[in-house]
Each structure stands twice: as C-alpha cells, then as structure tokens.
C-alpha cells in the first residue's frame, strides 16, 4: 500500500483546493521525503519550505500534518492518506508556504 498525500494548494486570496499525490511508501521515510518525491516525480510546482532536509535544525518545514502542527522532516510517512495544509495562523504565500519570518527580517 502506498501513501497518498492530500495537499491543500493555492495562492493567497484564492479558494484553496486539495490535490492528491500518490508516492511509494518506504518505511522510515519522512513526510518531507514524500514532498520532495512529489516535486521530483509528479509536480515541480508544489511549494513548501525546507532547508536542512532532515536535521531538524532549520525549523522551516513546519506545517499542518493530519490536523497537527509539526515538522515535515520529523514526521514519518505512513501508509494510506495523509493530509497536509499550510500553517493556519500564518499568512499564506502559496501551497504549504506561509510567511514565517519575523517581521523585521522581511523585504
């Protein structure tokens, strides 16, 4: 059984839509691994933040994973459907990317 990532997508101000992406399930993989697979194999336009990949050092990949705020790099992929959405209390930029920089560190 594979993993289906059900991802809330869209730009700020648009009506959000959910899109589903099937990725191969491999035990031990992280949700971020899954997102990177989607970008590489299915849809290169999918937007999410990450920097350190899997060290949980940059803290950039925070999102809503099955309704809970967590890091995509530390939550493991599971078989079946996983629902991903942008952080609810931050301004949306696009797809899973929100404005998380402190206000005085923006352009």
């Amino acid at each position: 059984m594979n993993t289906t990532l059900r991802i809330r997508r869209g730009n700020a101000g648009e009506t959000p839509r959910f899109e589903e992406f099937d990725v191969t399930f491999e035990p031990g993989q992280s949700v971020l691994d899954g997102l990177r697979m989607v970008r590489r194999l299915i849809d290169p336009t999918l937007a999410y933040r990450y920097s350190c990949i899997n060290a949980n050092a940059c803290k950039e990949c925070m999102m809503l994973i099955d309704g809970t705020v967590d890091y995509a790099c530390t939550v493991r992929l599971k078989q079946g459907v996983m629902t991903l959405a942008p952080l609810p209390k931050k301004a949306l930029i696009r797809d899973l990317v929100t404005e998380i920089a402190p206000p005085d560190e923006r352009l």
Partner: protein
Amino acid sequence: MNSAQNVNPAHLETDVLVIGAGGAGMYAALEAARAGASVILADRSLIGRGGATVMAQMTVAAALGEQSPDHWEYHLADTLAAGRGLCDERLAALLCEDGPRRLREMDDWKVGWAREDGHIKQAQAPGHDRPRCAYVDFLSTGPAVSRTLRTRLKSASDVRLIGDLVIVDIAIQDGEACGAVALHLPTGRAVTLAAKAVIIATGGLTGLYRRNSASANMAGDGYALALRAGAELIDMEFVQFFPIGHLAPRLIGMDPIMWDPFRYKLGGRLLNSERREFETAYASQDSRSDGRYVLTRDLATYAITKEVEAGRGSPAGGAYLSFRHVPEAEIRRAFGPVVDRLLANGIDLARQDVEVAPIAHYTMGGVRVDETLQTRTPGLYAGGEVVGGANGANRLSGNAITEALVFGARAGRNAAERAKAQSLSWSAEAVRPVLDLLRSATRRDAPNPAAAIAGLQTVMADKVGPFRTEAKLRSALSSILQLSQEIGNVPLSTGAPFDTMMTDWLDLRNMLLVARSVTEAALARGESRGAHQREDQPRLSEDWCVNQTISLSQGDISLRRIAPANGRPVA
C-alpha cells in the same frame, strides 16, 4: 506571466551587502557594522537557519591553550600537513592566528563552550597534534554558534536582515562589484541592491551530490556568482567526503554526520560484513596515523569504499558502526538527550549497530581571494566555506567553523573599510542583462527542474565522487553538458509566488557551472592527493604541487596552474 515580468524591481541601497546568513555571513555583517558600515544581510532561506553552521554538531579548532599548552603555529603546521602541500599559507595562517580571538569573542557572547575544571574543554581530533577542538554539548555546537550570532545581529545597529531573497547575480560596473540582483521569493518580484562592497558567504557545494550533509541551499551558488562576476575559483577538484555519514536505518531529525563525536567519546568500532575491524589495515598507509582512530577523513573514506568494493560492505552498502561493547550507562552519560532521540528513531545503540558510508561534507576549493578576502574583482569579497585555498587538498576536522568565524569577520571588516572610501557606483545598465533573464522566464511543462537536479546529483555521486577515473570524469562532463542543453537559456516559471520552478532552474544554472568546474579540475589533475583520488593515477606527483584556478569568459571555463601560496604563475 510571473510577477517579475510586470512589476518594476524594488531597489535597496547599502554600504555592504552580505550574501548568506550562516556563520560566516552573520559574523561578516556584525563586523562590518562594528566598523561603521550599513549592512544588508540577505539569505535565500530564513536568517540564521540555512547553511552549514546551524547543522554542525561537531567541534571548532583553535589554539586556545585551555586544555594543554598550544600555539597557533602548531595548529598551522597541522593544517598545512593535512592540506598536502596545496594550502594558501597566508589564508591558513589567518585562520589559525585569528581563531582563538573569535572563539573567545563567542565565549564572551555566551555561546556556551563545554567547560571542565574551570577551563574550556578541548577534544583531540584526527590530524591535530594535541587537544584543540572546543564544542558545545550535546552535539549542539552549530546551533549554539548560529543562535549566538543571530542574537548579536538583533541588537546590532544598521544591519538589515532580509530572508527569502535569492541572489541571482552580482552587478558589475567598470569591472567592480556594485551590488546584486535578487529574486524575492514570497512575491516573485525582482530586487536590485546597490552596494559599495559585496561579500559572498554562501557556503559550499556538497548539495551537488546525492548523499550530502548539507542544507538544501548549499549547492554552490556562491561559486557561480563569483565566476560570472569575473572572480576566479581555486582547488575545485577537492571535495571532502565525510567517511561515516549515517546510512541506515533511516534516521530523521538528526544530522547525518553525527557519529564522529560518538566515536571520539566512546570509541565506536567500524566493522565490515565479516564483523572485522578493518581500519588498522589501511592506517599503515598514512604516515600521520598512529594506527588508532586517527585515520584522516580521506583515508577512512578510502577504507570504507574499498571494503564495500571487495564485497565486505554492510547490507545498505557501507560499514557497520558498533557501540555494543560500550556499557549502556556510559553511552547515556556521554550523550543522554541524543540517546533518546535515537531511541525515538528505533535505534538502541547498546543493542544494535548502525550502517555508515561516506557522504559529501565540505568543499576545500572555492573562491580565490587575497589576504584581505577580496577576489580579483574589486569590491567582491568572500568569507567562510566558499573561500578556497586555506585548507588545500584536505581539511582538518574542526577548521570549518573556525574559518567561517575568522574569514567572515575579516571579510566584513575589510568590506566596510572599502565602503568608507567609496561612493555607490550603481547603474541600471549593470543589472539589465540579469533583469532581462528573469523577465524572459516562461511557463512550460518540461523539463522538470527538480528531477534534473536529482539527475545531476546522481551523476556527481557516481562519477565525480571520492574515487575518480578519466573515463568516469569524461562521462560526467558529457552528462553535465547534456543537462545544460536540456534546461536551456530561458528560465522556467510556475507563474506564482514562491516560484519553485524558477528557483530550481536558477539553482541548476549555477549547479551545472559549478559541477563542470569540479569535473574539469578533477580531470586535469593527473595524480591522487588528499581528497582527490584518481584510481587511474594513484600516486601523488611532485609535478602536481600546484593549485588550479578556474575563470569564466564568454561562457567557457578555463583552467590555469599556479604555485601554492604566493600565486606566481608556473609553466
């Protein structure tokens, strides 16, 4: 249409523009501000979160003389020996002499160096003649350094921090750096930055490799920026592979190079599939080794790779690292909080081995600078890992953070001095070609740039890894040229904010240029030395005690040989 196409660029002005907010960039910004300059510190990620420093879990080398008597010249001797004849001695001396000053300043800023009996604790690491490496417990050196610098920045006057800003190119006016053009990720808008001096502090290029210990933003963009700005690169064939990068079982939420301090403290055993310790068999090949766990990184990488090739590798294609001989209580005493994080990953060190294998870790080569950290393009400086030359053919463990702090600070101060004597020499002409490039972006379905990046990483790992042959390198070059043709000269665009296609395309444009630089330099160097090992040229050759520099003209790269340190041309 993407937004860069129909909105006028935003424009900012500053004395000193620093590109990259890792350890080097943050220190550069602090020091430039301390010298009285206004500073913009830009990062494509969030400030102080990306880059290599924040991920470094290891140690920082400096002749503090806290653990035992030491002098920076002893540190220099070890650094030069590891560099196997190719170090730029001026830069290496700067690193070693300034190191203690920077570590003490970080101590004043409460970084939290581990202490013992009232002094800063210094560990012994391979290649060092005495205990010289400070650290922050538990595996927190990099995060502590980043946090400390970030906190200082918050209270620094006249430093503007801007995250989510990708620098696309350095702007050049009359042969001198006068600023840069950037892409603002959240809006897709182009941004022009006028500056009296520009510092590249973007880190290394290990993101070119499939397995690497770098952040996603460490794919070598600084080298490409420097080349296109008329600067030279040096020693690009020397990429350091960290021998015992984590391989299996899948470990998440942790830095893949975390096992080294475990080995220092607990004496982990490196075993092949026959459960035999094999390092000693290779140790005799290195005159600097005393046969214990002191194999330098290049030799350890060689040992593991050869065991795998001989069919004695672990199931995932590496070696076993075992701590099962160490009492559980001792493991916990040394690494308590980390042991819990490992257990959460299903790894119980007292009962099971892990698998490790070489992983791309650090770039010795980089932007060629003089002793003021300035490139041959006036006004363009470099600091940190992106600088080439200080470490020659191989870097000593512990020198990376030191060089980030030392070179960052020096570049910041020198750039500020230049800015004081200089007026802005901005012109719209200087940035027109880059703005035109961004405006030319089109929405199209293929190729998938994220897939192309993965393809390039595979080519580099398989053909331009630690062990090279002419045939493999030639094959890599043709793949790189092929990929360059596939991505073309027109950027791809998603046509939306946080334009993933555009940033992947811009990254590929840089990565392909840098990959070519590494490969061409490796092909030309017909010998084995330090981190550059040619299986078809296995011996070190006295004729090759030279550095190779790379420059770009009319879109083509050219190589030149120079004598180390003094920069006089030979032949």
